[in-house]
């Protein structure tokens, strides 16, 4: 049974006009929080690392503004860039953990969660840490972010079949840990 996707990428804000010029300040004001939220869900870490990702994404965006056609396209472009930067950061984190003791990261920010939900999130990210990065990112986009598979494939830069396979592989491990009730 597939979850009901939120379709955030497919449903832009109604006030956006296709083909309009993209200004950096407007782009940041509109999508800064979105990028921070997406990075936080994919990373499962606190504010400092999230802010670094937001900086990286918008620094890149500031250089690529001419390539961003309009504010509607910008959201998908930012999602893809954020996903790839987070994936790169996760791979570096995993590589460092081979040589260094993993620093205890900040807890993922979930202000509206109950204590039980916080505990579940902590356990979930512990399991995700053990998954291959590509599978982790695909599963996180699909279930934590609620994106449809075609958007997951686009954000991960892979085919739909590959995206399905990655999501499925991660789901299998997670279901084994938490049980498929």
């Amino acid at each position: 049974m597939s979850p009901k996707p939120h379709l955030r990428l497919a449903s832009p804000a109604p006030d956006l006009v296709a083909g309009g010029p993209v200004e950096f300040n407007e782009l940041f004001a509109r999508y800064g929080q979105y990028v921070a939220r997406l990075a936080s869900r994919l990373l499962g870490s606190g504010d400092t690392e999230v802010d670094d990702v937001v900086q990286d994404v918008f620094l890149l965006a500031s250089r690529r503004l001419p390539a961003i056609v309009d504010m509607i396209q910008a959201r998908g472009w930012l999602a893809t860039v954020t996903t790839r930067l987070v994936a790169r950061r996760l791979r570096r984190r995993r590589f460092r953990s081979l040589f260094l003791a993993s620093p205890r990261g900040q807890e993922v920010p979930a202000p509206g969660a109950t204590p039980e939900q916080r505990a579940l999130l902590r356990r979930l990210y512990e399991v995700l840490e053990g998954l291959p990065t590509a599978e982790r990112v695909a599963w996180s986009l699909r279930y934590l972010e609620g994106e449809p598979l075609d958007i997951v494939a686009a954000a991960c830069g892979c085919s739909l079949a590959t995206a399905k396979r990655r999501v499925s592989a991660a789901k299998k491990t997670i279901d084994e840990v938490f049980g498929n009730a």
Partner: protein
Amino acid sequence: MRDQMWTSLGEKIEPVWAPEREDAVRAAIARRATRRRAVVRTAIAVASTGMIAVGGFALVRWQSAGPVAAPSVSSARAVPNPAPAGGAGETVTVTRLSSDTVLAPLPDRNGRGFALRAGGARFSVPHDPDRPFVVAAGDVTIEDLGTTFTVRYLSADRLKIAVEDGRVRVRAGGSDSEVPAGATLEVPISPVVEGPRGEPQPAAVAASSWRPLAERGQYEEARRALRKAGPSAVRDDTADLLLAADAARLSGHPAEAVPYLERVLRGHARDPRAGLAAFTLGRVLLDELGRPSEAVDAFALARSSGGPLAEDALAREVEALSRAGDVTRSRELALLYRRLYPNGRRAKAVSRFGGLD
């Protein structure tokens, strides 16, 4: 459903995105963008400087290795010296200084002589006393004494000679002068008789006078003309006597040069060129005629004249004494050389001939 549970759990993950945090991130992005622009500008500046330096270096290398080709001379580059001193592969390097330079090799000089007809050229020449390198420009002749020098037409009737290293002897208007390193000399110039293709016509000139031939470095023809004309063809002045001596020794007849040089020393001892005549006589006697005892006197005379030749004259005097078998005097003068010229360029040879090693 557990899948639905993960989605609703994901919605709980929401970083606090307050205006202060947004401003802080925006300011950090601006700082990083500024820093990045500075780094890019610096990298471009460094790369540009490097490219300019490499380009300049390549240009200098190209200019010194392969000058601009001119139709009149195709071989005026690094001209191999057929008989280099000491057997090493020394070369004469000729570099045109402008595209309008017209330079032609002198006949029978085996790359050791050029006629400069226009523009300017730089010559870097290993000295060979047996085969001096000459540059003829109109009626001016420049002979190297182991040097790097530049010859350039300032106008159709004026020539500039600049010496970077060593010395040259400039023969212009019937008189000789030496130009040391770092000095320049400007001399008036008159055109020489040339054939229809711009080449010197030795045969035509030889019938009338030996002088133009010798001044152009055609020493063999000059000597023949001189012998044909008889002893009266050489005037009793220093320039003419030196020119006649050059025609004799540089055409391979050093013994015939001795009387001319001795006439300079006897009749024009106060002439500033007397020291040069004495030094040349010493070289002829020592190097070409194997008469070291007589060479000692000639070098001593050259040394007493002072001037830029004094150091060389003292060194060659040590050598001549050594070859003449006067070990004691040779050692004394070697010690004198060491005291007068502690960093002299001939110190090694002096020590060897003076028995100081």
